């Protein structure tokens, strides 16, 4: 995998998302965009302009919107429903569970402002448990892109793959990890860097932080592998097991509570297949709060420095 590291994207994630959704709608006349008074925040106006007959702004009613999406899916549509991640997951959970997944319908739920990217909306709007609750739903695929190159790929595959998906991301510009046009496979982790001392398994914005952490560690003579686990469910258990065998120590890094999300998913695989020392970087027993992204990442221990410290702890425990 080539890596255009450490450069900020020139385009916001939401713009890349909307372009991808318009493209998916062009390919498939059943793709529908839905909002819950979130079109301005999510930047979906270009879809409404391109396909007004397939754009549905429900108003502020997450529960009804998820149910309507399920009903649309029952007659053959492929709805992509956008909401603030906190409400897409917590508020409409029973609807995602029962109206969508339980009856094997084809609904794509998009939770925006993943984790600390909710910044100045504060704790009420900061989804730190969304992947955890969604991961509990049978058949629900949970994905989070590392950057704006991967996002369009995920959208395309969500449109083409029957079943319920939960996609989370921050709407602003992210650091670029991948080049344009790279290929990804759902459910397959991407090894961005080789190393034998430990492996960092990350998703979302913490993929980039992990790459920075790897550089910091190299200066101290520690070589770490970095895996982008963009598909948090179903998690790539083979890749985790292989990394554990090769490195003997694993660190997870996620912009999410350590309970229920990537850290839990990796711990489950390691516990069952190959127990090795594991350190989980993520939010620990805290609600979100208001602040800039830099402040929140420091506050919750999500920075490259925090990841590097976790690697050192994992390596010490192995030795």
């Amino acid at each position, binding site marked *: 995998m080539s890596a255009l590291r450490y450069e900020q994207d020139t385009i916001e994630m939401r713009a890349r998302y909307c372009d991808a959704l318009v493209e998916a709608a062009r390919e498939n006349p059943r793709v529908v965009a839905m909002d819950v008074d979130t079109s301005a925040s999510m930047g979906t106006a270009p879809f409404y302009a391109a396909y007004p007959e397939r754009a549905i702004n429900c*108003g502020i009613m997450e529960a009804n919107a998820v*149910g309507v999406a399920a*009903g649309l*899916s029952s007659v053959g549509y492929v709805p992509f429903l956008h909401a603030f991640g906190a409400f897409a997951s917590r508020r409409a959970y029973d609807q995602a569970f029962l109206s969508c997944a339980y009856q094997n319908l084809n609904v794509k739920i998009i939770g925006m402002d993943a984790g600390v990217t909710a910044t100045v909306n504060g704790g009420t709007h900061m989804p730190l448990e969304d992947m955890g609750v969604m991961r509990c739903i049978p058949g629900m695929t949970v994905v989070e892109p590392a950057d704006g190159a991967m996002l369009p790929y995920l959208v395309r595959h969500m449109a083409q793959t029957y079943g319920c998906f939960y996609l989370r991301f921050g709407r602003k510009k992210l650091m670029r990890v991948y080049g344009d046009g790279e290929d990804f496979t759902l459910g397959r982790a991407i090894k961005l860097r080789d190393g034998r001392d430990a492996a960092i398994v990350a998703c979302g914005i913490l993929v980039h932080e992990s790459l920075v952490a790897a550089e910091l560690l190299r200066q101290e003579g520690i070589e770490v592998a970095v895996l982008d686990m963009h598909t948090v469910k179903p998690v790539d258990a083979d890749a985790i097991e292989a990394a554990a065998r090769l490195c003997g120590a694993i660190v997870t890094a996620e912009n999410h509570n350590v309970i229920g999300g990537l850290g839990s998913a990796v711990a489950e695989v390691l516990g069952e297949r190959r127990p090795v020392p594991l350190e989980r970087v993520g939010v620990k027993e805290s609600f979100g709060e208001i602040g800039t992204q830099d402040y929140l990442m420091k506050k919750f221990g999500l920075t490259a420095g925090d990841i590097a410290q976790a690697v050192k702890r994992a390596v010490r425990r192995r030795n």
Partner: protein
Amino acid sequence: MEADRLTGAAAEIRKLTIRAMAAAGYGHIGGSMSVCEVLAVLYGAVMRIDPARPDWEERDRLVLSKGHCGPALYAALAHYGYFDPALLLTLNANGTLLPSHCDRLKTPGVDLSTGSLGQGVSLGLGAALGCRMKGLSSRAYVIVGDGELQEGQVWEGVQFAAHRNLDNFTLVVDANKRQLDGYVEDICRGFDLERKFGAFGLAALEADGQDCGSILEALTKAKECGRPAAVILDTEKGQGCCFAETVPFNHYMNISSEMAEEACREIDRKLAEVRR
């Protein structure tokens, strides 16, 4: 005449429901009894269906949002030819195709799964909107209970229906006055349902939910009014079932085969009386 035929069908659906529950030994009898007439009218006279093709794209859809009354829906589906009525005796058995709460993945003719109250309204709205977007003339019918109207999602959905003028959507309210714990009036009353639905922008119609002719008239008006409609059916929880209608708390009862057979004899006797 039409109403007489439907009254007979409702009696058959009622008997099939009671016998299915007796085979299981228990069931949500009260709320199942109060929808027998409307199910007979919907499947027997109002909905565009083809029991031989339960997945026919141009069919009308029905969502039984009060999903715990699945046994009455299964009885109606069997009566109208979706599957062999003998299957009804497997109600709630291990591995059954007929679970207590409706499951579209298991039962031929069940359009959408329900069981978490309030959610069926949105499912029906999505189906109605999708049919309209596809250019189909199909309609969606959703049956809710009056206790179920306590769920906020119902009112989100009703507002959505009115705003989009989903004139192919009809909400049927089985106003049987009771919920699991007792009377709606005592637990959390719904006030004036006709005015509430009217205020939300729906055409609000009322009918006698024990009279197939009255139900047919209201559902026909709802279909032709050019707006999304709510048809409020005045029903009694347990109606038409002698061992249930005299019991105040009849949401869920244990049912023996003796009770069932006595109730079925009584249903036949009353039907003969009406027809005399």
